[in-house]
């Protein structure tokens, strides 16, 4: 049991820091550059994101191992996962609007953005590829969500300051954001030797 727990902890740590989705796997970049302009939106997005990621990881695991594998139609995984995510996003949108309108007005618009995000789709695809167990895919989803939240918050706090900086004209806006992300990614390579799985 103890080693099991250590393994899960390692999985969360590696998904959030060492194999951070933004800085080493380059996924979710569109959203990353899109919503990291303000701290408030970055925090809202991270919360919504981590929650949806864990639920979709759990749901896709169930569908993948209980339906796709027994029927030997694993080649349909892309279509099925996209369907699950789109359905889940639509469902949580409706449930949130009815039950917690306050939260919905704060986080609702991020929900709509999520279905076109590649990280959300990458989590079930990777865990299906690595043959994670149910708990492991949950941990993987949580770790990836935390890693994305960390990346968004770091980036948002830098970009808020960047508003006041003098940037050469051709670099204004996105090019500068890219260069900054490169620098953060460079710092994140320092985590690469943290644990060896």
């Amino acid at each position, binding site marked *: 049991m103890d080693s099991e727990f250590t393994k899960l902890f390692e999985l969360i740590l590696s998904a959030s820091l060492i194999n951070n989705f933004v800085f080493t796997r380059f996924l979710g970049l569109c959203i990353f550059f899109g919503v990291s302009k303000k701290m408030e939106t970055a925090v809202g997005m991270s919360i919504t994101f981590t929650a949806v990621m864990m639920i979709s990881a759990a749901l896709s695991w169930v569908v993948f191992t209980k339906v796709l594998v027994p029927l030997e139609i694993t080649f349909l995984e892309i279509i099925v996962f996209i369907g699950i995510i789109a359905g889940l996003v639509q469902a949580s949108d409706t449930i949130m609007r009815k039950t917690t309108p306050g939260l919905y007005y704060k986080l609702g618009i991020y929900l709509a953005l999520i279905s076109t995000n590649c990280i959300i789709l990458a989590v079930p695809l*990777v865990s299906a590829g690595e043959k994670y167990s149910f708990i492991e895919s949950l941990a993987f989803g949580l770790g990836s969500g935390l890693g994305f939240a960390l990346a968004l918050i770091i980036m948002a706090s830098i970009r808020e300051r960047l508003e006041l900086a003098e940037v050469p004209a051709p670099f204004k806006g996105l090019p500068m954001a890219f260069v900054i992300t490169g620098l953060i*990614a460079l710092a994140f390579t320092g985590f690469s030797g943290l644990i060896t799985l």
Partner: protein
Amino acid sequence: MSNPSTISLKELFLNGIVKENTIFKLALSLCPSIAVTNNLKNGVFMGIAVLFVQFMVNITISLIRKVIHPKIRLPIFMLVISGWVTVTTMVMAAFVPDVYAKVGLYIQLIVAFASILARAEMFASKNSIVPSMADGLGMGVGFLFALTVISFFRELIGKGSLWGYAIINTKPLLIMILPAGGFFAVGILMAAFNWIDARYKKSAHASH
């Protein structure tokens, strides 16, 4: 732009490559532009995969646009896109297994490309088949062009080789093939495009 009768096919085709280049201008679908471009071969194959999916999706949507009910159009578009992506992954896994081993995940993730869905929604669902083909081809070639340029520089500077063949014999700048180098390369290339654009506009302005 959505009125093909006043715009020639050639302009439609060029629109995707220059004016609305997916990566350098619209800054959409950025994930593979960094993930797979640390060598030229992966970059080119990824570009071809996107070109193929975009082209086929545009044709399919344009063919069935009259029978899709507007309320359920997005799920239908997703279904068409994921169908063609599945075809692409299977073909690539069979014919270029060495490339697929490295970029397979990103090819599967073409499904989540905002740019492909956007073209289906904005163009193919409103226009007949020939303009849609030109549009898809232009968008796809623009993407292929961007990936080729990025991976060309990254492999040349980072490894001193092109397509796996050694070109430069000095010690290469390793950082360019590291993850961080990808962000630097895209940032600098974007800035270069902006600079050329500004110069071009200025000279066009001066001549008037």
